[in-house]
């Protein structure tokens, strides 16, 4: 009963968000503020809200995706439904707070409550070890990034004597403080959107339920970083060094994530790395510093939210039916395209999603990625090296994206080749494989509750490209399509030969995670034992020693009591004499 109540509240709230987005659509930007408190004599703390075009866009994205996810979850989640739905609703509320807040601290509240909700939701299946570990890593990494984020707020806030976002940038500000502030904010954004230095938590967050991955790790939370930079864009534009840093980080992440996605052995992990890569593309767009770069990034954010959310929901259906999203398990069902035949709707929706992701012309991904490439090309043409770097890396990423999309598509719906090096890999015609051929009959389409949101998102993935007015630069469109084909062909040929050459480096994702484990986690644990030991032995020893000296001293004084009356008398007389002398000395 409580579960249904929470479900109603969840869906209702997300619909409310969509409604708010719709209502605010044409309205001109305005700010409202609640009561507040004055701290010290120049800081005014209050909850301030602001609505403008950017807010409407984000509200729409958040609203739509969260509605789809809430409806989808009704069919998907089976245990602890009430707490699950409550936390997803809280998450949506937090994201809305981030989107509409005009005060840096209110934004920080939404920012970190999102982190906490993602922790709780990733740890939803806390029976499983990887879910527990993934949840903790996600929260700790985002929390680690949020501390510099807080310091960035301090630097900017104290610099401009206000924490109101709309007033930031108004007062005079030394460039190096601005750069320091924006760089610190950048660290927070890199942590939250899983860019290169702090990217290991997103792939490990996949054990969480798929709707959660769709909502949090595809559409909203990770995109909050893009939203923040877009919101404070005029600040970031002034800080050139920060933009160049952003560009470098984005390009490195793009290529790193795309390469890892090419070698991943699990559907959701591929999608996770793909999300990191697509986010990097958005950041690359932002890092160009031009307004149409910002516009392209936001456009890509919107389309990415749609098709990536869709892909995660489809992966959810696969997970639901097959029990695991790893190719090793899927392999047994893909013998004769069983997945394609048994689950046609999922097949169609996933194909459109992958097409949008790969940038097949006509779909949303194609248009948004092109707008980024176009923006990059314009800045590159004006001679900025950043533009060139971004342009080249986006193009390379486009082809890599096409590679892993086609690979994913073929492996799931047509035939998964023998996975070299994967656990229990067996050849195609291995007799053993057929024996325990699971009867594919038990596979069946997800319930309509799960399919309806997927279809809605498919419409989005297909049609969103046209909402931003089709002004296509034919040359760039041609180049990106050619790149996509260049990426897709090797995937097809490899699949056709049944080979799966995965370099160990890519499979272990460049060994970044074990390195972090060795570099940070082990020393901290050792330090912890040192501190506890120190407390017990070093400081504790002093305290115990104080006690023992007391006892020893008393034992020593006891020896003075010899029991002989005359000794006492002598001592008394000596005392009197000494006092007399003292009195005499002091007296004179």
């Amino acid at each position, binding site marked *: 009963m409580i579960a249904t109540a929470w479900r109603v509240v969840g869906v209702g709230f997300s619909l409310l968000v969509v409604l708010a987005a719709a209502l605010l659509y044409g309205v001109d930007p305005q700010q409202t503020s609640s009561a507040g408190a004055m701290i010290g004599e120049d800081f005014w703390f209050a909850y301030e809200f602001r609505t403008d075009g950017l807010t409407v866009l984000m509200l729409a994205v958040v609203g739509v995706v969260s509605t789809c996810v809430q409806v989808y979850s009704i069919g998907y989640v089976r245990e602890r439904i009430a707490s699950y739905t409550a936390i997803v609703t809280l998450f949506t509320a937090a994201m809305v707070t981030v989107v509409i807040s005009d005060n840096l601290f209110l934004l920080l509240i939404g920012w970190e409550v999102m982190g906490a909700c993602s922790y709780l939701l990733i740890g939803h299946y806390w029976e499983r070890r990887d879910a527990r570990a993934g949840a903790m890593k996600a929260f700790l990494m985002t929390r680690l990034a949020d501390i510099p984020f807080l310091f960035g707020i301090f630097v900017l806030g104290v610099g401009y004597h206000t924490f109101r976002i709309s007033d930031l940038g108004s007062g005079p500000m030394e460039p190096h403080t601005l750069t320091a502030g924006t760089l610190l904010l950048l660290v927070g954004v890199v942590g939250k959107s899983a860019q290169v230095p702090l990217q290991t938590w997103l792939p490990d967050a996949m054990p969480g339920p798929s709707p959660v991955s769709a909502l949090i790790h595809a559409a909203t939370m990770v995109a909050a970083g893009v939203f923040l930079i877009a919101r404070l864009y005029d600040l970031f534009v002034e800080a050139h060094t920060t933009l160049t840093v952003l560009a470098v980080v984005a390009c490195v992440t793009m290529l790193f994530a795309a390469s890892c996605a090419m070698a991943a052995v699990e559907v959701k992990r591929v999608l996770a790395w793909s999300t990191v890569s697509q986010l990097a593309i958005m950041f690359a767009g932002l890092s160009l510093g031009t307004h149409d770069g910002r516009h392209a990034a936001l456009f890509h954010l919107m389309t990415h939210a749609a098709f990536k959310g869709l892909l995660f929901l489809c992966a959810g259906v696969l997970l639901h039916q097959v029990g695991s999203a790893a190719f090793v398990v899927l392999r047994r069902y893909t013998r004769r395209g069983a997945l394609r035949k048994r689950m046609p709707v999922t097949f169609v929706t996933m194909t459109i999603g992958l097409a949008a992701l790969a940038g097949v012309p006509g779909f949303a991904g194609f248009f948004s990625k092109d707008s980024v490439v176009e923006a990059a090309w314009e800045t590159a043409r004006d001679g900025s090296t950043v533009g060139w770097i971004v342009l080249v890396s986006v193009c390379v990423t486009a082809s890599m994206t096409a590679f892993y999309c086609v690979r994913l598509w073929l492996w799931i719906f047509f035939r998964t080749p023998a996975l070299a090096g994967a656990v229990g890999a067996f050849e195609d015609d291995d007799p053993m494989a057929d024996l325990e051929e699971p009867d594919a009959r038990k596979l069946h389409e997800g319930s309509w509750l799960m399919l309806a949101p997927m279809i809605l998102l498919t419409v989005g993935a297909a049609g969103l490209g046209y909402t931003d007015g089709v002004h296509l630069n034919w040359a760039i469109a041609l180049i990106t399509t050619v790149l996509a084909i260049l990426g897709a062909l090797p995937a097809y040929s490899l699949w056709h030969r049944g080979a799966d050459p995965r370099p160990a480096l890519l499979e272990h994702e460049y060994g970044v995670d074990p390195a972090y484990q060795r570099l940070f986690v082990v020393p901290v644990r050792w330090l912890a034992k040192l501190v506890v030991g120190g407390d017990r032995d070093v400081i504790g020893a002093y305290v115990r020693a104080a006690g023992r000296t007391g006892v020893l001293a008393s034992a020593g004084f006891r020896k003075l009591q010899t029991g002989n009356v*005359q*000794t006492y008398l*002598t001592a008394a007389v*000596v005392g009197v*004499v000494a006092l007399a002398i003292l009195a005499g000395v002091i007296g004179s």
Partner: protein
Amino acid sequence: MTTALFSIAGAVAVVAAVFVVTSRRIVHAALWLVVALGGVAGCFGALHAEFVALVQILVYVGAIVVLVLFALMLTKAPTNPLPNVTTGRSPFAAVVAAVLALILGAGVVLAFGNEKIRPVTAGSAQAVGTQVFKTWVLPFEVLSVLLLAALIGAIALSQRPSQTLPSQKLSEGSDTVSSSGKED
């Protein structure tokens, strides 16, 4: 004339006192005490405090020293010269006494260096008598009560012959019962 008399008596008293404190034989020490107290009585006489001198001889020499002698007899004090009559600490005690003497002497000399005692007419017991029963009557009464209490205490203490220490009472419970029985 009185100064000469006084210094003779004083010298006698001091010499006797030294012997009291250092003599090897305890009984001799008691006898030297008699001489010392006699010397002091002489000094009182020199200061015309005849009544006090007489009381001194009467009570001190007569009663107290006799009591001491009785005590010596009861505690079977050896009459032969004892080898170590003073404790290990005696040199230290001597030093302490000497320093005390120096300080007191210095104090007294500084305070009353050149005071003179005017020759006094023959003192009389009458003045002491009036004082005891006029201004000092309360301390006198209290003193009498104290004397009474002290003596009762002394009797009570020495009343129970087998008053053994509590520690020993436990070990030989039976025999105390028998001994006190025998006592009555």
